[in-house]
């Protein structure tokens, strides 16, 4: 009986501390999405460069020392196939995804070349995008429909941002 009293007192005290803490700070707190984070932790030895679409997470995941572009369907918690995109001789640098997960823009290093590419998932096609003035692409950002691409470019010793309106 005494034990039960002590237990309820301790529960009450913990609740009081929690409420008091939240009220005193008045702070908003980030709430981790536990199940998805567990999946992300277990599915790759490391992961970087996150890019969110409506229900998609594109990132560069590393497994057994090889980095590749991965697109995860957050609803089913499964990676989706990206045929023809990842190559053993290429090192991805940056990735961005359209809101519906159909288009991926990416920068990758292959041999001595840094390539700016657009991947269309439904076609499984990789299209190389050319810059109007010579430069080395570094970072990409697609708009929601995947029609406009912003790309950070190293050019003449400084960083520029080019906008590419994709015609198809």
């Amino acid at each position, binding site marked *: 009986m005494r034990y039960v009293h002590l237990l309820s007192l301790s529960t009450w005290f913990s609740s009081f501390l929690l409420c008091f803490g939240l009220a005193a700070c008045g702070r908003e707190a980030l709430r981790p*999405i536990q199940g998805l984070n567990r999946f992300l932790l277990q599915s790759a030895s490391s992961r970087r460069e*996150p890019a*969110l679409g409506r229900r998609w997470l594109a990132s560069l995941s590393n497994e057994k020392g090889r980095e590749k572009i991965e697109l995860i369907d957050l609803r089913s918690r499964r990676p989706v196939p990206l045929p023809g995109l990842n190559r053993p001789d290429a090192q991805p640098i940056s990735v961005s995804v359209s809101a519906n997960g159909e288009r991926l823009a990416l920068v990758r290093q292959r041999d001595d070349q840094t390539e700016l590419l657009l991947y269309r998932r439904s076609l499984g096609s990789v299209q190389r995008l050319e810059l109007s003035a010579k430069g080395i692409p570094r970072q990409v950002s697609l708009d929601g429909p995947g029609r406009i691409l912003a790309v950070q470019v190293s050019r003449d010793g400084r960083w520029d*941002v080019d906008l590419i309106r994709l*015609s198809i």
Partner: protein
Amino acid sequence: MLLGCLALGSCTNTVERAPGGILQRSQQDPALSGNGEMLAVIVDQRGRPTVQLRDIQNGKILPLRHFSRHQPHSSPSLSWNGRYLAVITQRGNRRLMIIEDRLSGRVHPLPLPGGRDPVRLSLAPDARQVALQVADQGHWRVELFDLSQILEPDKPAGLQSSFPSTELGS
């Protein structure tokens, strides 16, 4: 036509310099709003990397209320209509994500649990979630956080259904 374009590679994409690019010394970390109307970049302001928001159509700089301090800024990310701008900022020795609500003028400083520092971020188009890259025991990790209790959704016009966080959740 499509197959021809794909075979030829670049086809007829239009490339242009981002507004203000010629005048700025350096522009980095581009982030487009979901609707493609706004561009956030990190520019060098008196030696301090600072986020700047521009209207793509007319090149005008759009006002931000809460990003004149706490540099260096990095990894900006915009919601669909550009209502929310999320940026990694510096406060003391800590890196901290700050989200500005451009509609209400409110600011949301959101430190990572566990005293960790975010390295990169990506805001979901509807601003219901954010993905953060963090360092953990010598590895890069990406973690997702629910923002639905903090921010109102910023959906494309006419889109009723959103992807509720509860479907993603634990």
